[in-house]
């Protein structure tokens, strides 16, 4: 099964010097995010699979794919816990 991820529609993102702040209008919470997190949340404006997110980081930061995948998985876990993510399985 392929899982795709998309950021929650109630989420608002403001980026500043690469880093950013995310508002969740539904839960009325806000979070700070790193430069990598901003990149991933921008990618997650559209539905993306894990591979696409990893490829996005590799292309942007020239990191090795294994390290990028660890970062993406950790970020998705944090987003999932904060309710910032929608997941669709197909």
């Amino acid at each position, binding site marked *: 099964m392929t899982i795709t991820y998309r950021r929650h529609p*109630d989420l*608002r993102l*403001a*980026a*500043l*010097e690469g*880093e*950013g*702040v995310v*508002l969740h*209008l539904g839960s*009325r919470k*806000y979070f*700070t*995010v790193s430069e990598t997190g901003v990149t991933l949340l921008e990618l997650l404006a559209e539905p993306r699979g894990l591979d696409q997110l990893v490829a996005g980081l590799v292309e942007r930061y020239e990191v090795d794919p294994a390290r990028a995948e660890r970062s993406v998985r950790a970020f998705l876990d944090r987003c999932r816990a904060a309710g910032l993510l929608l997941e669709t399985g197909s």
Partner: protein
Amino acid sequence: MTPSALRLSCGDPAVAAAVRAWLDALTLEPPAPVTLEISVGRPAADPPRAPTFAQPHLSLWTDARGARLTWDGAPAEAVLPGVEPVARVTLSAQAVDRLDDCCRIFLLGVVILLLRRVGWHHVHAATAVDPNGRGWLFAGNALAGKSTTAAWCATRGWAVGTDDTAFLASAADNVDVVAARGPLALRDGGNALLSRADGTPLPSRGKTGYRPEDLGGRWVPRVRPEIVAFASVGAAGGGTAIGSIGARETLAALVRWSAWVLFEPSLADEHLGLLARLAAQARSLRLTLGPDLFAPGDRLMELVP
């Protein structure tokens, strides 16, 4: 005289006169008219769901249909449909009996929600312009020392806009901050630090009010911040100090001090965008306030030349 862009309709002449005077004293001229429609009667019951946001004295419900604000001091409600710049306010007789507090606490909240609808977004902060012409915004919680710092600025000849209620306004490529005029309201501790006892008593607040002009400064309605200072009172025995703060932390802190209105869904993007632009425009610093601030001289200009 130009008609105020803060429009008021109210069938009760006494309430209308008092609210009109209060609105005029705020000295706000928003970029487009906003309207308060006030009636005296029985406010509707609260919705069955929890408020979107509750802060001391005020509860706010927001959704795609607009906003509803209530006051805990006496029955009073304001309904703002969608993003129209109109607030339909119902004040109970008890609220009318406390009209000064009702204006200062509840109707100010209504005005804050109204001004969002014409592009001015609230930030809980003090504003000033230093002797070098640099705009400052002092943010922090209710006990962070904003009012005392604003009053101190006036004693050093700075121009001061507000100690508490300000609005972010887009100005071409910049963000300006507009002040709602009101007394710089000091607690007894602030009076003592400034060695003042000659302000106007504000008994319902347990404070003393000063105009910037009373303290040697002047009033400034609009500031373009070059410096955003997050103020806090330091530990006993410590001195006034500054520290750096990163862009992400700056934006998060600005969000924190705007949170009660920021989450209104239809206007969140615009408000968040202005906060991000302000954070990018200004140098940000942590300001720890110590008693040496009140020694002769201008300690802030020494620390941030």
